[in-house]
């Protein structure tokens, strides 16, 4: 155990009497409990947004794939009574609309929510210490640091990834996606009034299809990194990761000051 602690356990207090006496908790467990700390980080709207957003992205990737490369032709009814491609596109558009509303709600919450709700939307490039910590975190991922540091919200590397993949990535997908939707909705529709400028600016909207498609892969790459890093940190780091996005509480595994 480390020499320094951010708090002194009250050794005269015996915690978890019932658990101890029924044989559930060992002496080591009690020792560990005395040293654990936790902090509330993510408020419920942030957590709810995270999971809705994740679900929408899964639906959007699946349906988007089949819009670009449709399922094999099937005929089980007359064309009039069959709506395979129609439902796939409906699923894509419905998920996209939920994702869009969610993203705006998330931006709203960055203003009214707690400090950690803002972290997704900026990168503190002017903070010299922050850059130093980016290097530290890089070294941790390159196995050059024996032990990671404790972070309340995102670690500096995660903040960079969140900002570029999610904040910018989702914004890009929303803009290009709504411009593509505006093509079908046609001039005079709300989506065309809002996003028609992008159709005009790009010129040939086949380009818009291509970049929207590349954007999907950008998000897929983020997902691979994000899920891997979350699970890895949950196991190897000194704090909770996965459960934090469920309960909102970050639990630290030790009580050392740094």
């Amino acid at each position, binding site marked *: 155990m480390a020499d320094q602690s951010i708090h002194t356990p009250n050794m005269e207090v015996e915690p978890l009497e019932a658990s101890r006496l029924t044989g559930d908790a060992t002496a080591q467990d009690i020792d560990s409990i005395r040293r654990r700390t936790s902090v509330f980080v993510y408020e419920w709207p942030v957590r709810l947004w995270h999971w809705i957003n994740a679900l929408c992205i899964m639906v959007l990737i699946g349906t988007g794939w089949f819009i670009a*490369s449709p399922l094999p032709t099937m005929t089980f009814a007359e064309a009039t009574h*069959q709506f*395979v491609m*129609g439902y796939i596109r409906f699923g894509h558009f419905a998920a996209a609309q939920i994702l869009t509303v969610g993203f705006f709600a998330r931006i709203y919450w960055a203003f009214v929510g707690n400090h950690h709700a803002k972290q997704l939307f900026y990168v503190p490039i002017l903070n010299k210490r922050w850059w130093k910590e980016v290097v530290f975190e890089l070294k941790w991922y390159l196995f050059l640091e024996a032990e990671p540091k404790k972070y309340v919200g995102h670690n500096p590397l995660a903040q960079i990834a969140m900002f570029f993949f999610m904040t910018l990535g989702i914004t890009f997908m929303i803009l290009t996606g709504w411009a593509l939707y505006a093509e079908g909705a046609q001039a005079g529709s709300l989506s065309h009034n809002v996003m028609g400028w992008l159709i005009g600016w790009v010129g*040939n909207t086949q380009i818009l299809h291509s970049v929207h498609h*590349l954007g999907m892969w950008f998000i897929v790459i983020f997902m*691979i*990194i994000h899920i*891997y890093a979350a699970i890895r940190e949950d196991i190897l780091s000194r704090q909770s990761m996965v459960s934090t996005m469920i309960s909102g509480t970050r639990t630290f595994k030790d009580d050392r000051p740094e």
Partner: protein
Amino acid sequence: MSQIETFYEVMRKQGITRRSFMKYCSLTASALGLGPSFVPQIAHAMETKPRTPVIWVNGLECTCCSESFIRGAHPLAKDVVLSMISLDYSETLMAAAGHHAEAALEETIEKYKGNYILAVEGNPPLNEDGMFCIVGGKPFVEQLKHAAQHAKAVISWGACASYGCVQAAKPNPTQATPVHKVITDKPIIKVPGCPPIAEVMTGVITYMLTFDRLPELDRQGRPAMFYGQRIHDKCYRRPHFDAGQFVEHWDDDNARKGFCLYKMGCKGPTTYNACSTVRWNEGVSFPIQSGHGCIGCSEDGFWDQGSFYNRVTDLTQFGIEANADKIGMTAAGVVGAGVAAHAAVSALKAAQRKTQDKKEEA
């Protein structure tokens, strides 16, 4: 200006009856999407207005615009508009040639300064001082600028004049440049297509001559009445698209059944034109109806969007056979492999530490 005849007088001279004239007016009104109340307005304008002269110049092009134009479905529209145009200047169609032709151009410009419409078929190449297209012994770009100087408005015929078309496809060695990037101080209406539909061409000219103004344009400067919707939005095979019924191979049963050509690379979903409503050759057919996907000929840079037969565009920056999926899958594969390797090293490191801790404890 009193010696200039009205449209109606020109028509009557060509032996067109009043009855046919009124038919033409109502047909034009409906082609332009105007209500019946506009029919007398069109008729009145044609009876009283002196006709607007049109100068038709040709740059780097294949003359398919002219070919399309002279095949207008309504012969009246073609004859009348065409004869009016050929009276002034059109290299392909006028009787004069050589110095006489060039003199006719100068005369028209002088006579109708600020009143004529300049119709441009093709585009000027700007590389090597425009030497890749010579008209009357001079680079075409000079003739274009000269003729545009006193024009009331400019019509960009076809994909060449509007966007550059094949001669502007990458790497564009002659630096073929669409008209709106050379002429920047005149109202320009783009009528893209390779070629544009004849009825669209006559419709645009008739609108401009009748109402003395440009029709409503979309963001890219195309007449909204003809380019407001995608081929896809009005395609008669659209129900098969929504049903998920596609042609999978050119010679399969689905092709015979007339299923959607989306998987064969049809560019209908990204192409704005009137093909699926007005159609071609007097409404006989259009590419999709004859079993081939749309190639998107009325869109900007349609030659540079990869194969005509792929829905997911080839991105040759990443190699000849690459597209968004191949690039994305490669990138995701590399990242996935990296993650797997990283996870393996992490597990080894963790195991190593555990062993060390145990040794220390022991």
